[in-house]
Each structure stands twice: as structure tokens, then as C-alpha cells.
């Protein structure tokens, strides 16, 4: 799981242009939106695209996606259970 968490952090840094951060600076349980990392709605769309392209994950339910996008750890746990590829 830690390897997957690190992998997702690296992908987020690249996909969301967070060059000012390193994976070590992103807390596994930090809030991604609002406080914490301070991501916005465009970042949310980018994460949806990233999960689809890299892991074959598609969200049908907006509320489900909102729960998954709480932190890097919740994303990693979801990817671990539902990945189709990658």
C-alpha cells in the first residue's frame, strides 16, 4: 500500500503541476481539497482523468468520487480495490 501511495503522490505532482512539492511533503492523510493541499475543481477533473487512464477506474456516482478524493490514502485504498489496469 505504501508503494501505491507513493506512486499516486508522484502522479498527482506531475498531473496537477505541483512542482513546488515532493512526495515526502504530502501527508498521506492530508485533505486534498479546501484546506491541506488546496486543490480545486479542475484538479478534481484531472484526478478523474488520471484514475481512468492509469488504473481503468470510472466513477458513476459523484458522491462516491467525493468520498474517494478525501486524501491520498483514500484514493490509494480505492485504487487498490478497483483497479482494472496499471
Amino acid at each position, binding site marked *: 500500500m505504501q508503494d501505491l501511495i507513493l506512486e499516486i503522490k508522484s502522479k498527482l505532482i506531475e498531473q496537477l503541476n505541483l512542482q513546488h512539492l515532493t512526495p515526502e511533503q504530502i501527508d498521506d492523510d492530508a485533505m486534498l481539497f479546501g484546506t491541506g493541499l488546496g486543490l480545486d475543481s*479542475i484538479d478534481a477533473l484531472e484526478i478523474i482523468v488520471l484514475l481512468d487512464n492509469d488504473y481503468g477506474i470510472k466513477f458513476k456516482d459523484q458522491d462516491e468520487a467525493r468520498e474517494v478524493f478525501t486524501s491520498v490514502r483514500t484514493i490509494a485504498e480505492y485504487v487498490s480495490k478497483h483497479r482494472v489496469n496499471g
Partner: protein
Amino acid sequence: MQIAFYLSLNLLKMTEYRTELVDSFELELSAEAADLEKQLGEIYQEMGINYPKFYKMNDLCKLGFIGAEKITSNNTSLFSEIAKDQVATIFFNRSSSLVSDHEHMTSIHRQSIPSPAVFVYTLPNILNGEIAIRNEWTGYSAFYLMENYEASKIDELVNIGRHCQTFSLCLAGWVETDLANQKYSLKIMLYKVN
């Protein structure tokens, strides 16, 4: 109707607002595309700005943002005297948002879903928006495309803008990201309008 139109045109010519050039900043960058982006990042870091959203911007917005930061940091007392809805941004270039349009097309061909973060920058006036957000300005904004940099045309359109909406300060200038010739060019001016 025609008479009223020509009368209004003549009134426009008669009411020339006095614009005073307060400050200006120029920047010319020339390199391979990857180096240009790197240069912009280095300039940003040298300026000591802490605005992480900079890294999400396309090169057009980064270039204009750097110019705006130079001007605002050199004129803090002037900007503090002016209400935020009295600051206008009027920018010009030749290449529009091609720097992102090209990347957007590439992402469509490369993957089934184009990148939302690239798509939102496929309009040149997003530059006006980024600078306005940074400074909380809510004044007049416009982005014009021109064949080449023409100072007189910029002056004219700043004046026309003043006729459209009241503003006391105007950040105007040429923000060009010429990918074909690997050159980025910035000429940004701050006008006080009376």
C-alpha cells in the same frame, strides 16, 4: 440612426483621456520550448513570490503574471490608493493561446480524454483572469490579437477601453509566446488614466 452613430464617433475623438505612463517592464526569452518554461520558473523563484498556482498556468499566463508582479511590487503605494474595481487589464498578442491550444490538440490525440487543466487555458484572456484573481481586481479587462507589437495601437485601445468603463489604472501590454520561433516577449506598461 446614422447621424447619431457619426456624432458619437466624433465625440469619442474629442474626449481623449490623458494617460500617463507610470512604469514599464520588458522581458525577452529565447530558447527551446522546454527551456523557456524552465526560464519562467527560474524568474518566478528569483522574484521570491509564493503563489503555487503559478505552476498550473500555461506559459502565456506565467509570462504575463511575472510582468504584472514586477509592476505591482514596484508601485504598491499607487495600487493601494486605487479601488480594486478601478484597475483595468488590457493585453495584446499575435499568437492568442496557441501555447495551450497546441497542447490541448496533442492531448486529444494522445489520450481519449483531453486534460481539463490544459483546456481551461485555451483562451488568451485567461491571463487577465489570473492576474485579476491574484490582485483581487474587478475592473475592465480585454485581450486583443494584433499582427505585431504597436505601441500606438495599445495607447488607442487603452483610451477606447476608458470610454467603455471607468478605470484609473491600466495594466496593458504585449504578451507573446511565439512557439514557432521559440521566443517569448513581454512589454508591459502601467498607465494612470485621468
